[in-house]
């Protein structure tokens, strides 16, 4: 029996005058990878930003580990154990790889050092380019750094926004392998347009369309439902 780690109930989020999320509902079970799917502009990124407190929801409730986090500021939400990998990776260009990792550490204790070692084994390139400024990394290396930084803390939930975006297939494969290893240790909400990646990693899915949750279920169901894929994801 898996427990609900995160629950969104009737979430409405505005950006300026635009009503982006309209009564969005979904649940994330502990230990699973939940994939948020939908076309461009469906509201996937805004959903993650609302969870993270970067675009706070105007109404509705976001419950994480039985606690209402809807109106909390982003830094408090992060401290509750939620890691965020934004669509643009959020790498600090003038900081080296090592500094990007260190600035992401909420604590610098033994447990953090152990996680750091683990994550560097997962992404050996980061060790190689430890003293290189983040701005000089390739797209794939930046993505790996962003994911690694989110994992270096004791996070129970990772929100990862389109990790395959703009990456070569061989790099996408590496990112998939890394998230596969991470999902053994943490729960993941993944926003992804690359259906291959989504279906490889996902246990369950939610489809957003025009800011509304229109479908949900097990990933196995989606893999076999050609109609659903065609209708909402544009996959023939």
């Amino acid at each position: 029996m898996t427990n609900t780690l995160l629950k969104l109930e009737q979430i409405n989020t505005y950006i300026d005058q635009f009503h982006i999320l309209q009564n969005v509902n979904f649940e994330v079970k502990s230990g699973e990878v939940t994939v948020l799917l939908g076309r461009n502009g469906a509201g996937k990124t805004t959903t993650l930003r609302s969870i993270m407190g970067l675009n706070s929801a105007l109404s509705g409730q976001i419950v994480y580990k039985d606690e209402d986090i809807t109106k909390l500021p982003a830094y408090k939400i992060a401290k509750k154990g939620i890691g965020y990998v934004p669509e643009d990776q959020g790498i600090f260009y003038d900081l080296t790889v090592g500094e990007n990792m260190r600035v992401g550490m909420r604590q610098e204790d033994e447990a953090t050092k152990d996680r750091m070692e683990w994550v560097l084994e997962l992404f050996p390139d980061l060790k190689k380019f430890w003293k290189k400024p983040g701005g000089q990394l390739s797209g794939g290396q930046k993505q790996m750094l962003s994911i690694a930084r989110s994992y270096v803390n004791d996070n129970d939930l990772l929100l990862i926004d389109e990790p395959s975006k703009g990456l070569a297939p061989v790099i996408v494969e590496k990112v998939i392998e890394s998230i596969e290893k991470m999902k053994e240790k943490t729960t993941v909400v993944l926003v992804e347009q690359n259906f291959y990646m989504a279906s490889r990693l996902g246990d369950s899915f939610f489809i957003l369309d025009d800011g509304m949750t229109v479908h949900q279920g097990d990933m196995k169901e989606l893999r076999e439902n050609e109609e659903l894929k065609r209708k909402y994801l544009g996959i023939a």
Partner: protein
Amino acid sequence: MDLFINLAINGIATGMLIFLIACGLTLIFGLMDVLNFAHGGIFAWGAFVGVWGYSVTQNFLISIVLAVIAGLLIGLITEYLIIRPVYGNHIQQILITLGFMLVLSEFIKVVFGPNILAAQKPPFLQDYWLVGDVTIIKYRAFTIVVGFIIFVAIMAVLKYTKIGLIVRAGVMDKEMIQALGVNIRLVFIGVFMVGSALAALGGALFAPSSGVAYAEMGMEFGIFAFIVVIIGGMGSVPGSLIAALLVGLSNVFMAYYVPSLAMAVTMILMFLVLIFRPEGLFKVSGVSNK
């Protein structure tokens, strides 16, 4: 040659004093995106508190410490009462901080009286050294050393400490640093207070150098500091140092050779930078795709 060296030392000393005001301003702008025209007022308060402190205690170090404490407190009050309500709105920031600059200047007159105060150098810094034919005024050498120590200290904090990394990262992307669990508001307050303390330190060191402290000095040096921040690159401490030295040196040399162009040369420097390198001499990068 002796004249050249003397002018150069004078220019570097002036540049270091401008740097002390500008480095706080550049961090405040870079991290908080705040246009703080009240910064010069804190410089003037530092000068007056320093002069007053020295006249009361006859201890130069204590007078400097008092000025720095005054800077920290005024910084805290300014951030809390003046800046906080206008985050994200540059027009309101300009109007309210310019207004507060005037309040700070006028309040100096209320507290210390309307007259110009004479500022003394401490006895151990009143003399000069004669190196060959070059006269090195001790106080100028002292301001250069203090300015350099402050620069090295700031760079060391920014480079090697966690809080320094957070400030550098915050200058690049405030949102991401919050998503990593950092309370950016607390960092804002800290940076604002330190920046204000540096301006006050600059004022406390400037007054004995010029021999006077006057309420309007804040506006004068505040504008210099803004020009330096624009030339150096907003958010860049090394940029502020280089720009402050450029402004200091060019001012001193022009004041000697073509006095009528002394002020204009600073403006010309700024125009040239804005035309050929609008982001300043030292650009602070952002984050991915931003």
